[in-house]
């Protein structure tokens, strides 16, 4: 297997409505920044992977229209779509393409323009014979699973609000983040509109327009072009049964993320994730999910997630900072969100995270979450 590293990344400013640019123009902004960050010309790209959920914008095969924005014209181009994991799965697809030796330099770009469609409605286009008539999109589905998770683990609304506050305070040091609310408090989260019991507005991710890109390169090229490449040490995907009701105690069990993490850690030589990881960028569309993922990712034992946030373990100055970028809770252009996780994890290793840089990052985790319980995990590091 050829060694593979992230040698650059770029993101647009994410926002509620980026109607200043078309879809191809939005993609081009992120791609141009990624190429500049990697210090390469577009001619250097051997292939492009594009991530997006087509029905959110009512499109089919969107790469046809916006491939030129991604410098994919006259190049090999693959389009990946797996719900929320689209971005991380696209990064893993690019990783496999480079690792295979077929391509040396691959661009992965994800985008979403939620403002151009109706995302919750798009998400609710589920099985027409089973639950399409009652499908409630990500919000309703999460709220249901959260009620189970709270009852089983004893997690409180205050603890979830603390996750929401941590995310937005971190986002204040990330100029690309959609939500900028540096002074947010737990009280404000709890006082924000109750969208679906027990989920308040500020517990939930925003719907963002935005794009993000990374540049992947094979070992020799990465060493030549980049002083400190962010090596992909391991990556795994797990998918789950198709209906929300198939998955017993969804947030508490999350066997997909547990297994993807276990497998990735084993390959990357991580015995104790809390100790061996220096930073994590995880896909938390709602505050409560971050708590559940702490347990699934082995940051703590089951039932201990509330304590972790209470004790500040995952704050910027804690043992394992989680989502220095502000996470999905601060920007969620779905097709890009997984790419952002990988880009942010890579930036921490590359030492290019600016104001939200964690000192001395050697090993970083990025995760993806999609549909009801699809999961991706990638470990990046300063050594291959």
């Amino acid at each position: 297997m050829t060694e593979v590293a992230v040698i650059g990344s770029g993101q647009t400013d994410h926002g509620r409505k980026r109607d200043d640019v078309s879809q191809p123009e939005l993609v081009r902004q992120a791609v141009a920044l990624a190429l500049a960050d990697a210090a390469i010309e577009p001619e250097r790209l051997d292939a492009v992977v594009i991530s997006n959920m087509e029905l959110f914008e009512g499109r089919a095969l969107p790469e046809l229209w916006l491939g030129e924005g991604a410098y994919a014209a006259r190049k090999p181009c693959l389009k990946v779509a797996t719900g929320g994991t689209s971005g991380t799965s696209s990064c893993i697809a690019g990783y496999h393409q480079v690792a295979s030796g077929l391509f040396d330099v691959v661009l992965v770009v994800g985008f979403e323009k939620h403002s151009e469609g109706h995302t919750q409605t798009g998400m609710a286009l589920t099985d027409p014979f089973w639950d399409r008539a009652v499908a409630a999109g990500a919000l309703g589905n999460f709220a249901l699973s959260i009620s189970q998770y709270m009852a089983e683990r004893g997690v409180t609304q205050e603890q979830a609000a603390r996750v929401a506050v941590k995310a937005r305070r971190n986002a204040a040091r990330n100029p690309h983040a959609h939500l900028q609310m540096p002074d947010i408090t737990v009280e404000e989260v709890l006082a924000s509109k109750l969208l679906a019991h027990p989920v308040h507005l500020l517990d939930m991710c925003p719907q963002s327009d935005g794009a993000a890109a990374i540049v992947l390169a094979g070992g020799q090229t990465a060493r030549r072009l980049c002083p400190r490449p962010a090596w992909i040490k391991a990556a795994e995907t797990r998918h789950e049964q198709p209906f929300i009701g198939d998955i017993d105690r969804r947030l508490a069990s999350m066997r997909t993320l547990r297994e993807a993490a276990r497998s990735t850690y084993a390959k990357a030589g991580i015995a104790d994730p809390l100790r061996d990881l220096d930073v994590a960028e995880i896909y938390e569309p709602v505050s409560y999910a971050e708590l559940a993922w702490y347990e699934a990712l082995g940051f703590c034992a089951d039932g201990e997630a509330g304590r972790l946030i209470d004790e500040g373990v995952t704050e910027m100055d804690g043992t394992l900072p989680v989502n220095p970028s502000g996470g999905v809770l601060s920007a969620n252009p779905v097709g890009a969100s997984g790419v952002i996780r990988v880009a942010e994890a890579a930036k921490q290793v590359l030492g290019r995270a600016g104001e939200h840089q964690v000192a001395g990052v050697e090993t970083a985790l990025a995760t993806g979450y999609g549909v009801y319980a699809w999961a991706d995990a990638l470990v990046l590091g300063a050594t291959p």
Partner: protein
Amino acid sequence: MNERISITIEMAQSWGYASGAAMERFSAGLRERRIEALKCSGCGRRYLPPRPFCGNCHLELDDWVAVADEGSLEAWTVVNLPMLDGRTGEMREAPYGMGLIRLDGADTTLNHYLDVADPEHLAIGLRVQAVWRDELRGAMDDILHFRVLTEGP
């Protein structure tokens, strides 16, 4: 160039979805207020919705079992946000109660509306029962919603 142009295009597409044999039988049952699940001979799981194949055991399913139209509330929420219903193009008004319901005789849960939209009256473990539409059409919305039978477990 300061003025921003955008182009509105209305999607109004129609698809003919095939139910598959399992859902066809299930839907026919609904017309008679009958709910049936398919049981896996490997893991014993009784699946709703019934499906041709168990993804855990990789076995085809053909063992039908009867399921009650009542069960226990495994998860609940009250949604306060209206949503555009993509099937009709109409808004679905809020608030509405939703639950994951484990019907007696099934091992998976069913997501559906609850007639209660007051968090004070909802709790995990409540007994709930389907409220059926008068004119049954053999579709999941033959069940209007679930009503709470007990005040608590």
